[in-house]
């Protein structure tokens, strides 16, 4: 019967995307509107529509390219693509999923090291204090990324303008915060 193809088991990456996020890459007809509007498509190795194209073929080498791409890390989650996509292909949640998979399968693109280091430092800060400790974040990020020179000029003026505090603000219920991280991020990584 005509419904039967809904029951097909789809083990391709696009099949998993559909199952986990509800986003169907098959809907994309490669018009390129997302790529044209995406603010960082020039920085990406594959602009969003091309990334989707690679998922559409379902070929293992293409899926590998996707998971190892810079694109998934350069995506800003700005939602411009979905705001304009005529077929309503919801790219941002797909990007989130691909990032998670890329980490899980240890396929993270080396060029996105900085971005991930920053995200990790950011989350560490929250885990420790419950809030973002910007000074700590910058120090932490710099040690992780070895990007020591960048922004040294900015910090002193930020101090001067009262925009950076030396000591972190800490929430009271730090146990609760640890708990949340234990139940989510730490849980996944094990």
């Amino acid at each position, binding site marked *: 019967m005509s419904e039967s193809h809904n029951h097909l088991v789809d083990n391709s990456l696009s099949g998993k995307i559909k199952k986990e996020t509800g986003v169907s890459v098959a809907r994309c007809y490669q*018009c390129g509107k997302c*790529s*044209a*509007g995406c603010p960082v498509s020039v920085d990406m190795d594959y*602009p969003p*529509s*091309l990334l989707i194209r690679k998922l559409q073929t379902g070929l293992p080498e293409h899926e590998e390219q996707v998971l190892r791409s810079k694109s998934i890390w350069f995506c800003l989650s700005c939602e411009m693509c979905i705001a304009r*996509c*005529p077929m309503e292909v919801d790219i941002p949640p797909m990007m989130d999923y691909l990032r998670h998979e890329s980490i899980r399968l240890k396929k993270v693109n080396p060029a996105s090291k900085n971005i991930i280091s920053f995200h990790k430092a950011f989350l560490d800060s929250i885990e420790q204090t419950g809030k973002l400790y910007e000074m700590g974040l910058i120090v932490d990020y710099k040690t992780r990324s070895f990007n020591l020179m960048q922004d040294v000029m900015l910090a002193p003026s930020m101090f001067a303008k009262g925009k950076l505090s030396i000591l972190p603000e800490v929430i009271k219920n730090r146990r609760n915060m640890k708990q949340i991280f234990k139940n989510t991020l730490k849980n996944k990584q094990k």
Partner: protein
Amino acid sequence: MARIGVFICHCGENISATVDCPKVSEVAAKFPGVVYSIDYKYMCSDPGQSMVVNAIKEHKLTGVVVSACSPRMHEPTFRRACAEAGLNPYLCEMANIREHCSWVHEKGDKTDQKAIDVVRMMVEKVKRNNALMSIKVPVTKTALVIGGGVAGIQAALDIANAGHKVIMVERDPSIGGHMSQLSETFPTLDCSQCILTPRMVEVAQNPNIKLYTYAEVESVEGFVGNFTVKIRKKAKSVDETVCNGCGLCTTKCPNKKIPNEFELGMGKRPAIYVPFPQAVPNIPVIDKINCTYYKTGKCKICEKVCQAKAIRFDQEDEIIEVAVGAIAICTGFDVKKTDFFPEYGYGKYKDIIDGLQFERMASASGPTSGEMRRPSDGQTPKKIVFVACAGSRDPAKGIEYCSKICCMYTAKHAMLYKHKVHDGTAYVFYMDIRAAGKNYDEFTRRGIEEDGAKYIRGRVSKIYERDGKLIVVGADTLMNAETVEIEADMVVLATAGVANPGAEELAQKLHVSYDQHKFFSEAHPKLKPVETNTAGIYLAGACQAPKDIPESVAAASGVAGKISCLFANNELTREPLIAFVDRTAPPEYSSCTGCFLCQPVCPYNAIEREDVKDRNGNLIKQLAYINPGLCQGCGTCVAVCKSKSIDIDGYTNSQMYYEVDALLNS
């Protein structure tokens, strides 16, 4: 008492190789009511048919069962034979023992038993058949054509030339439709006006055609062959019989700053106007909303200058009633405006226009006399961008279907532009080039190869204005989806083709169905493309879906052919296998309870409400009444009626009941 004859056919060996025909005949002879039973090699052969004819006469048969092939094959043959013998043809039934028996089962008792059961079933049925007369309905040989675009024009001329009367109703002051707005037409690039105007004039001059412009259909009643239509003639404020079309009034009217609909707002017109110079009829109308006299009670200049004394400020809408036998809907389509695409600038930039506006700009009779001039400052655009699928194939913001004509007209536009601005550059953003038609692909190739239109495969993401230029941001999906930015002087959006406003309302008046996009629905997408589900009402042109001129014209001629067939006879003969509501006399005793559950299920709107009144004219009851002109005999209402007040000839409740019983109680 029933006197039934049974005729078992061998079909050469097609049946007899599997089914024991003599045995079936023998058993059948003993069924109650059967007075004659025989088997024969080829029942449909001349001798076979004569056997039937003779047996009817000889044995005074009141019913015939031919047990042979599928009724879909030879039912008409044997019904004709019965009629020849003086038996009502509807007293003949066929039992299918070939397609449904000998060809699909193995030889043996089980198969014989099945054949016997099937014959018994049909014997029980035929005993309860009614003698029926084919329904004859008189045909009014006048056609109504609604809409005077190219489709309506073609349909009207073809029907009129076949010798029938045509009434054409056009909503605008002139016929011509969208084609009259076009500059040149694909795939030949011939001038649209040049080929259309003569046909428009023919409509006006053909003695068989009565043209009502500035008019609309008010209501439609009746059924195939016999429609009664009310037409509202909107007041033109001009006496058509007196006006000689000199046009003096239009030049003297002081109120000249009204946006011209025909030029899509790119030109102006006076309050008393003829929509375009070649208009048919060439009679002006007064736009009451904008006329100074209607607004303030002062002016009447047109009246003063009119030598023919044709102006009638007190004219009122007029309702005319006409009788027609068939209706052709040719109301065409519309194009979406540019302002529904937020990322393309909300229609706030003057130099972004739609395809139809481009047609006017390219047209020698248009507001720029055919010169390419951008609306904001009248400069010649040196770089122009065409955006295909601007609103089509876009479930998110536009419509999901492909508008079909825009690939072609966009290619045409790019060519026309290059023919007019030799040093200009034309870019086309597209997704696919849909050019499936005779000489269509060749046409778009010519645009690319010879006229140098630069096609970029990608959808435009955004258009914004900066320093008097329109920045068009798109992607080139054939080049790794790289972003392409073009600084254009003018942008033309190939906006979607959509249903005409008012199409839904018209469909409801006519009781014909329409799809989710408000286009009229054909009765069958392949085999009945110009019929609607209502007998006698047909469709042609872009009112069905976006269509180009060749397709619209082909469909219109198809409709004309259909209507001419209908008009070829004085009467319409229809199968009498239709439903009827129980009507005892007096009608108040009808078992119909007036619940009207049957009414909405009828696909043909054949069920009406009939008032039963007492002598004083007081309403006692409402009954269902099935219009025999509209009923197609599906039987849905029969199954729905809870009080069993509806029955259907050929498949009556008692027939079906006894068929089932006979089939099983062997």
